[in-house]
Every structure is written in structure tokens, then in C-alpha cells.
């Protein structure tokens, strides 16, 4: 579904990704772990098209993404929950979610909305509040719901558990599982490795912009929970 080949990303003088290669098969959930500054967000943003690739290729559903702009990629079926929430602060909660389902048509939109309301009752309760007024964790839910609202083929989640209470982590995990059951392919990063590992099928350990280890969750679990990968 997603093949990243020798991808390099630079910010001015800093090289964030040094020829990284990663593959995500259809229906898989792949977890990226690594220290702060390892380059996880850079990778996700490069797939989304928000930062340009210096070299290397990104293929999605057998098509080369490099010539596609960010919005084209989104419309090709990639959903995205950015690091640090970034909800649309002056839009209401409902409008935030519907913005995620932009251009799907009314029927699909209301379908998505009612599905998300079921998973996250908060969205229904606070539908008319401005998203910028929500608490940090509540915003995180909105950002996730927004990413899921278009029922994307590939879902990019950058630290979805950031700032969530344990009980909410469980709820979000449930929603992610529901996405998995729909056959969604997921690429995620997370510092809270333990709950994330429960969701993932495979994982990559990233360090200094390169892949250190990769394999099924069972194989990298210990590594991810230990300190060595730093």
C-alpha cells in the first residue's frame, strides 16, 4: 500500500531523514518508534506532502506520490492527524470533523459523523463549541476524528495518545481498532509505546533519520520498551 524508498528530507542544513526505506502493506498497522528528533514526524509529513522530499520515492497504492500536492494526496485516500493536534480553532467541533470529510457529499458526511459520534460521544455533546476552546485532550479527539472522517485508505497518526488520560487512551485504541476492522492501513508514531504496541502489527525503530530495526511487533516490543534504541 505504501512504499517508501531511500527517502531523504532536509531542513536547510539539517538532514532529518537519511535515505529511509519503509513499507506498509494493505491492512497493516505499522508503528514508528524513536527518540525525540529521530525523524518520525518528518517521515509522516513527507508522506502527506507537507515537507518536500530531497530524494527518494514514496509510492501509495502503486502510484508515485512525488508529483502530487498535499491536497491531492489527501483526496487519494490518505488521512492525517498531525502532531500537536492542530484543530481548526475557530471552527466548531462538528465543522472540524466535517472539514475532515471535505468533498465527500452530504450522505457520506452524515454517515461519518454519526459513526464518530458513537465512538466519541464528546463530539456530539460539544458539537457547537469552538474547537479552540476545548481542553488539550478533547482537541486530540477532534483531530483524530477529523482524520478518520473521510474513511481514508491510509491513516497517518502522529502521536495520537499525546496528552490523553489512560482511560481515554483505551477509548481511542478502540476507535483505531474499529478503523482496522474496516480494513484501513495505518502508519503511526507514538511515545507511549505500550498501548501503541497493542495496536500495531509491525514496527520500525528509527534513530537519527535511519531505520535501526524493524519487524513484527513481537520482535521489537522489548527493544521499543527498553532504552537501547536511543
Amino acid at each position, binding site marked *: 500500500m505504501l512504499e517508501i524508498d531511500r527517502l531523504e528530507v532536509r531542513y536547510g542544513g539539517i538532514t532529518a531523514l537519511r535515505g529511509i526505506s519503509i513499507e506498509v502493506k494493505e491492512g497493516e498497522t505499522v508503528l514508528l518508534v524513536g527518540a525525540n528528533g529521530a525523524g518520525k514526524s518528518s517521515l509522516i509529513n513527507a508522506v502527506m*506532502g507537507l515537507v518536500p522530499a530531497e530524494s527518494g520515492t514514496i509510492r501509495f497504492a502503486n502510484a508515485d506520490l512525488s508529483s502530487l500536492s498535499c*491536497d491531492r494526496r*489527501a483526496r487519494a485516500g490518505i488521512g492525517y492527524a498531525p502532531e500537536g493536534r492542530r484543530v481548526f480553532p*475557530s*471552527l466548531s467541533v462538528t465543522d472540524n470533523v466535517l472539514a475532515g470529510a*471535505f468533498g465527500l457529499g452530504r450522505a457520506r458526511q452524515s454517515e461519518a459523523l454519526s459513526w464518530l459520534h458513537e465512538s466519541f460521544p464528546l463530539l456530539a455533546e460539544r458539537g457547537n463549541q469552538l474547537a479552540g*476552546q476545548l481542553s488539550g485532550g478533547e482537541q486530540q479527539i477532534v483531530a483524530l476524528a477529523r482524520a478518520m472522517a*473521510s474513511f481514508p485508505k491510509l491513516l497517518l497518526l502522529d502521536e495520537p495518545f499525546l496528552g490523553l488520560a489512560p482511560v481515554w487512551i483505551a477509548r481511542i485504541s478502540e476507535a483505531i481498532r474499529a478503523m482496522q476492522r474496516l480494513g484501513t492501513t495505518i502508519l503511526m508514531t507514538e511515545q507511549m509505546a505500550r498501548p501503541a504496541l497493542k495496536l500495531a502489527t509491525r514496527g520500525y525503530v528509527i534513530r537519527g533519520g535511519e531505520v535501526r530495526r524493524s519487524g513484527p511487533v513481537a520482535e521489537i516490543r522489548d527493544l521499543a520498551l527498553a532504552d537501547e534504541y536511543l
Partner: protein
Amino acid sequence: MHGIISAGIIGIGLGAQYALLALGFTLIFGVLGVVNFAHGGFYVLGGYVGYWAVSSAGLPYPVAVLAAVVATAALGYLFELVFVERFVDEQLATMMLTVGLYLVMSTGVLAGFGPEPADFAFPVTGSWHGGGFFIPWANLIVLGVCVLAIAAVYLVLYRTDLGRALRALADDRPVARAQGIRPHLLFPLAFALATGLAGLTGAVVTPILTLSPHVGDSVLATSFMVVILGGLGSVTGSTVAAFVVGLIEAYSDVYLGGSKGALALFLLVLLILIAKPSGLFGREARRA
């Protein structure tokens, strides 16, 4: 008593006119964050296109209004695409661009139509008289257009994907793009919508008042005042503020005279903003 009611009727008439004026301005300003100094220019251009269509092309007035909307919208679309788009996040730069555009536009109109007021008359004349009061028919028509346009803009902005997408783009462009929203398509469109509204206002209002190349100057100030007083980006807010300003203006002008009335109006607006620093309907979206 009679005087108070008459002044109220006048205030509502002014309010409708201001609301219509402010609408396009809110759209560009509240949604794209661009302070459009050329707003008055599009108003004047709308008036002149309408005038040209009626007097030179011989079109019926409603068609002329339509032509004005189309022409101003097209110009707005082009301008945003060519100039504003590159600077859309820099409020100061876009402001300067629109200042430049305004100067060019008003010179163009002056060169094309000359400095004298144009002979552009509203097709409907006369007033409705009743109970000792009167309302010019033209004002009633403007009120109708105003209500329709506000309803349309409100629906577009708050009930459609397009409106949502525009507001999302204004909040956070990269993330909005990552939802599949196309800024290069939508921003010019929004700009066109807004300038088209200014053109509509011009085509409808200038025949009631006057049409000359410089009637746009004061339009800008009024729209600006109404939009901010209402609270940034709030269509409801700017509509309410338009009628508030219209009524204050009517009463203060009638009871204090034109010059002192203007002073009273400005002082009141100043006081309102000091008491309510984010406008009548402003909502503080971001927090610590």
C-alpha cells in the same frame, strides 16, 4: 414621537445598505484574513459596470446588476490568483497590495468614465407613504437584496463544504490542505465571491445615491467599522453591527446634526470597543 420613528426607519435603511457593504468585506477579512482596501473600488466598479450596461449596452437593469457582479467577481478572482495568493499569510503585504489595487482601479474608472458623477438612476422611483411616514421603494428593494444576500452568504459559509473549507484554510492552511482542501482553487473563489458582493452592492446602491469615481473612499471606512464592531468574521455580528451603526447614525444625525452626529457615532463605537474588545459578537477561539 413621529420624529423618533422616522429616524428609526431611516436608520434601518442605512443599516441595510451598510450590511450589504460589509458582507463582502467580512468574507475576505474574516475568512481569508485579508484587509481589502480595494473593497470600495469594487463597489464603484460594480456601479460603473451597471451604468455602462444600462446606458451603453442598453441592457435592462437586473441584467446590468448581474453583469456588475460577474465583472467584479472576475476581477477579484484574477487579482487574488495573481497577487494576493503569494502573500496570503502576510497581512501587511496583502493590505498593501489592495491599497495599490484600489489606486489603480479608481484611476482606471476615472480615465474610463471621467470625473463627473454618472447618470445612473434606479429604475424604480417614488416612495411608499403611510401613516405620515415614507419609505422610498428603492430602499425597500435594497433591504430585500440585503436580506437575500446575507442569507446566501450565511448558508454558504456555515452550511456548505465550501464555507467550512474556507474557514479551515484561514485557520491553518497546511493542515487544511492535508484534509484535501485546495487553497489555490478556493481562495480565489472566495475572493471573487466577496468582490462580487461589493459589485452587487455598487450596482444596487449607487443609482440610489451617487456614482462618481470616488464614492468608494468612504465605503471602505464604513465597511471596516461595521465588520470590526460586529466581531471578526461573524456574518451575524456584522449584520447586527450594520444596523446598530445605521441607527446610531440616523438618530445622532437627526438630533445632533451631521458633523456632531458623526462625532457621536465615532465616540459610541469607540466606547463599545473599549467595553467589548473583541466586537459585539466576537468569540475568543484560542486560549493559553
